[in-house]
């Protein structure tokens, strides 16, 4: 499988956030996005997830499922967790499991739910309404979605926010095993995830419409 990004250009209003970006991510590969605030990490991830339409350029997943869109083949972990305060942890995750994999049979869905709870150390919190959880615990519930459905491409936007070191290690382990089993992962993070093999892509803020690269940007500052 190969995620192919070809001369991607993304505008938000008048501002060109991403200019002529090309890169590839293969199976069993993780890509870390680096860059200052406003460099376009979130924009790039949201464009891959299909929330933003690129101005020009191509975004394709070669070797993926033919009848599915790119968005349906990725897990997106954004700034928000997608967790309902009025539902317990297992109700939250149970719903996402059934929603994201509606065709799987009940036993398989239950298995996945248990794996997800176990992987992200949520078994003790299973029956607690998510509204009572701490920020880091809520984040873990959000991340547990990764284990509820098989999606080849993981898009993680600042996944380590409010996580403690132990939880960061859990996440790193999950990403590692996903990548080791042939998955793709793209993560925007300032904290090293412990992914030694990951490649890094440095994004440069594109502040000036006429600028062509880093130097012109420095002048604009």
């Amino acid at each position, binding site marked *: 499988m190969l995620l192919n990004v070809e001369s991607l250009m993304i505008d*938000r209003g008048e501002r060109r956030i991403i200019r002529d970006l090309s890169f590839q991510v293969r199976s069993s590969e993780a890509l870390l996005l680096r860059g200052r605030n406003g460099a376009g990490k979130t924009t790039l991830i*949201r464009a891959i*997830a*299909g*929330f*933003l*339409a690129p101005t020009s350029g191509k975004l394709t997943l070669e070797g993926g499922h033919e009848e*599915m869109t790119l*968005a*349906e083949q*990725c*897990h*997106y972990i*954004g*700034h*928000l*967790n*997608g*967790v*309902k*305060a*009025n*539902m317990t942890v297992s109700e939250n995750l149970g*719903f*996402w499991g*059934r*929603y*994201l994999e*509606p*065709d799987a049979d009940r036993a398989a869905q239950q298995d996945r739910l248990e794996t997800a709870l176990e992987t992200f150390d949520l078994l003790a919190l299973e029956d607690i309404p998510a509204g009572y959880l701490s920020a880091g615990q809520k984040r873990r519930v*959000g991340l547990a*979605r990764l284990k509820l459905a098989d999606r080849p491409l993981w898009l993680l936007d600042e996944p380590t926010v409010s996580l403690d070191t132990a939880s960061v290690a859990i996440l790193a382990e999950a990403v590692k095993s996903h990548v080791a089993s042939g998955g793709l992962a793209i993560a925007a993070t300032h904290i090293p995830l412990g992914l030694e093999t990951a490649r890094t892509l440095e994004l440069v803020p594109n502040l000036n419409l006429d600028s062509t690269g880093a130097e012109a940007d420095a002048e604009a500052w």
Partner: protein
Amino acid sequence: MGAFRQLLMRDIQLALREGGALGTALGFYLLVVALLPLGLGPDLKLLSRIAPGLLWIALLLAALLSLGRIFETDNDDGSLEVMALGGLPLELVAAAKALAHWITTGIPLALLAPLLGILLNLEFQAYGPLVLTMLAGTPAISFLGAVGAALTLRARRGGLLLALLVLPLFIPTLIYGITAITSVTVNVDGGFSSALSILTAVSLGSMVLGPIAAAAALRIQMQ
């Protein structure tokens, strides 16, 4: 279709658990209708003549209170983004959420209406038609309202804007809802069934078109 059902069940469950939206809508409906006779005076003939119109208008306003919440909570906590990446098309996501709104708000309001009819001295033979027309007409409120809710999702203080956007769309429902009931009280031959048919047609039409428009608006809002 499995994902549609799951989403519908979840939204109904959440609405019942949170309770606030339904309680507010029912309480508002009760209060508005209870205040009207106080404002209009104890003229029973006048009240019973304008009762269908008052009941419908108060119902529209009560339903409007909770329309904004159709997508708001899911947008605020990020659930909407995850839903957009599921296999279920966004049109069906919008349809499931509008349907859940109808079940948890439209139906209870329609069932409360005959009780409030007593306060307005509604004529005896009009109670059946009242409930029937409201059950047939309220889906239009939820499904057209979903379009407005999606359009005003990211607008700050979108509540008033939502009312401005969607209230005009409810005019056909209002007109034919009231026509159906008055045609029973003043005995117009065939008036009830034709008005009810149009009312149902408006609801069915908005059940098809509403989710498509709402999904288009959601796609823009999620950029």
